[in-house]
């Protein structure tokens, strides 16, 4: 479901929305009511780091790398989740913000293997974050319990995206959830049951939303292990899933004439980026493996 887009009482997307005026980094702008501070900043061309936020999921509000300074607020606020209000005065690059973002990045790097997270290194540079300042992550064994994808929770930053994609936000299967508390929290099935014995239907939507590479399609995982994953050598082909009448839009990622990953555009009206096992993994039957 497109979170962040307000709906009217009948559930339809509200298209005619009032405007809200606010100030961000000294610039005054008007955005539609219901937008987030993140949306507003984006419209000014401000690039805000985000990890747990996704356009097609309910904001989990958990990573806090997107925090901004809101005048009058006691603490910083998460720009991805906070809706704009008239007269807000926001700073996205003050010392308070930079310090907080820097330490959040350092804390992440000290506890999670962020090496496969796009843009992470760039953000560390931008905020002067020293990745080993608070130590280095503890290794964890890769969970390899099914044919279609692997789970490397040493790379899991607990962004809640896979849980949301498996649950209310897309799949409604609820095969995985956050278990344990605090530093012991992990993503798990009940009693850590292997995925094939759990409720999982292998739609791969969790893999599709994972920002850190903790969840990887088998083809991608194997190529990465062999140091052969190379996005510069990949092409993307848009097509329609042939398996049923719904007509989901697919993007085939091809490397060396092999389909290495199937995704769906987040902006797609039909899929909002989510697929089922056939669209996601049906290529396995196309005779490549």
């Amino acid at each position, binding site marked *: 479901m497109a979170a962040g887009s307000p709906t009217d009482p009948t559930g339809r997307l509200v298209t005619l929305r009032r405007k809200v005026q606010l100030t961000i980094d000294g610039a005054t702008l008007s955005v539609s009511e219901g937008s987030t501070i993140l949306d507003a900043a984006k419209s000014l061309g401000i690039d805000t780091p985000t990890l747990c936020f996704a356009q097609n999921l309910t904001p989990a509000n958990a990573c806090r790398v997107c925090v901004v300074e809101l005048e009058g607020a006691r603490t910083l606020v998460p720009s991805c989740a*906070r809706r704009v209000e008239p007269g807000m005065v926001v700073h996205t690059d003050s010392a308070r913000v930079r310090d907080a973002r820097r330490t959040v990045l350092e804390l992440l790097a000290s506890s999670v293997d962020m090496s496969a997270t796009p843009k992470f290194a760039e953000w560390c540079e931008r905020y002067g974050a020293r990745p080993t300042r608070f130590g280095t992550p503890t290794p964890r064994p890769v969970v390899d319990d099914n044919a279609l994808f692997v789970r490397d929770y040493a790379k899991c930053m607990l962004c809640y995206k896979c849980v949301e994609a498996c649950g209310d936000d897309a799949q409604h299967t609820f095969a995985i959830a956050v278990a344990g508390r605090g*530093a*012991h929290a992990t993503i798990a099935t009940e*009693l850590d049951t292997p995925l094939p014995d759990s409720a999982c239907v292998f739609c791969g939507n969790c893999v599709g939303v994972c920002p850190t590479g903790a969840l990887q399609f088998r083809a991608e995982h194997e190529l990465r292990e062999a140091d052969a994953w190379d996005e510069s050598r990949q092409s993307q082909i848009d097509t329609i899933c042939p398996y049923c009448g719904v007509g989901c839009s697919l993007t085939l990622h091809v490397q060396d004439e092999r389909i290495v990953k199937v995704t769906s555009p987040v902006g797609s009206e039909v899929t909002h980026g989510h697929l089922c096992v056939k669209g996601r993994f049906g290529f396995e039957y196309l005779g490549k493996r």
Partner: protein
Amino acid sequence: MDLKSIDALPTDDEREAIERVLATQPEPTRDLLLPVLRAIQARVGFVSKGALAHACDRLQVPPAEAWGIATFYHLIATRPAPRTVLHVCDDVACRARGSERITKALASRFAPEAAAHHDACWKRSPCLGQCERAPAALRIRAGEPVEERALGGLDAVSAMDALRGETIAVPAPASIQQPRDSLRLLARVGVVDPESLDDYRAHGGYAALRRAHELGASWVLREVSDAKLLGRGGAGFPAGRKWGAVASQPARPRYVVCNADESEPGTFKDRVLMEGDPFAIVEAITLAAFAVSAERAFVYVRGEYPLAAARLEHAIASARRRGLLGESVMGHAQRLEIEVRRGAGAYICGEETALLESLEGRRGEPRAKPPFPVEQGLFGKPTLVNNVETLAAALLIVRDGAPAFTALGTPESSGTRLFCLSGDVTRPGVYEVPMGLTLRALIALAGGATHGLAGVLLGGAAGTFVGPDELDLKLTFEDTRRAGATLGSGVVIVFREGTDFRAVVHGLAGFFRHESCGQCVPCRVGTTKVDDLLARVRAGTPDGTWDDERDRLRELGHVLREASICGLGQAAASALESATQRFAIWPAAMPTPTPTPSNGGKA
């Protein structure tokens, strides 16, 4: 929802424990998940696969989610465990009274922590809310019925006896140690029979509710507002404003939630109220529900308070039988049902939105605010969440009028307030004093420090330290705010001369690490880093130089305060920071070793 079941069956005992909870409610709704998990735990000592399967089937909760919830709470075991568990407090007030001697003795003479021995084990516990009886423990023996007993004044011998299942009588000092004539909130505690509605009425009970019914809800709202009552749960929010906000919401139904989670280390005042004067809490909730037109209310009592929960349940049942709850409260056009719900060992569930999540049968993870509970609270409906003492104070305000309340205290901090004195103080207990008394006078009221005074922890683990030269601090919201301190939940823990404050703050850091819900990065990771850092401080082994460590701590404090979702993370470094300003926390005299990064130097 089409759920895939877990492939396992419950035992007859487990099934019966589950069904008994479901029988208390018209429908098997999701919010019964925690009561059901608690019931299984109480019956057999842990939640087995079969029991979880049956709970999920009956409540239509996805197994993975139920597992996530069961593993969230400290008092729910998800692996086979012995029937008898002795939860030994090793938190700040009990440590000040020698609890470490007990845990050491148990480890060497009984079994290592959490290891089963003759169907029993012991575990360290965060503050059990029995600090005036420190060192304290809670013994839970699963079975039918479950036995839950709070033990105070413990020593190694009685702890061993408790583990062997012997019935032990521990002398518990009276919780109230001050002259009775000055008591208002505590007036009936220790005087009234807590299990007799008639006795409660004979001591002035239900006069406030009668008055409220006579004068109407808007009068009540005005009176609470005029009394300038500030919340006693920690944040000090004006109660009148909150009540008014809930009452003015268009949405229905509305709920009242009494926050009796009381898990801030060093806090036990709400327990004393609930155990000693439970009908007053029931009347107070009824009054609040009347004021905001709520027809359903919950009291969320922390899992470690068996007696308080039992007394409240008894009081609710008696009140209901006598027409003081139910379809027509006191014959008036007020309808109300109150339910007691018990926590299961999670400090975070005292945070109001985490509490609501827990009540709804989810993990106790705080919500983003706004929206605030007054608009979207329990089940998304307008909800009044107040602390036990706040509600008790509102009852006095309605009974005696706002002027009687504002006559005590200061203009900005009206009325009396309960303080929980513990640690190295002569007469630990709950003290009720008008706001504005100095810390010095309050400690004197409790007989003074036992072995000199090196410092005081004010407000709890989320509070701040006060040095011996700051005892003239007036105990009001405004004076503490100006001093950069907080009253928090009314905690005053006294530390003797010679206290190792490094060990004390390391203990607090361990508490936050243990209690972080894990939702947000600053707190989940930050609290562990603070704890690790303090371990290095105590061991004298800095990562780099002490200056590096100092910088790290400053940065951790900043990110916790500024970027955490809720008050737990936001306050997790405040006591520590106040300690570094007052006590020798940093090993300043220690030679700084050559910088060797302990992290292996990985870039």
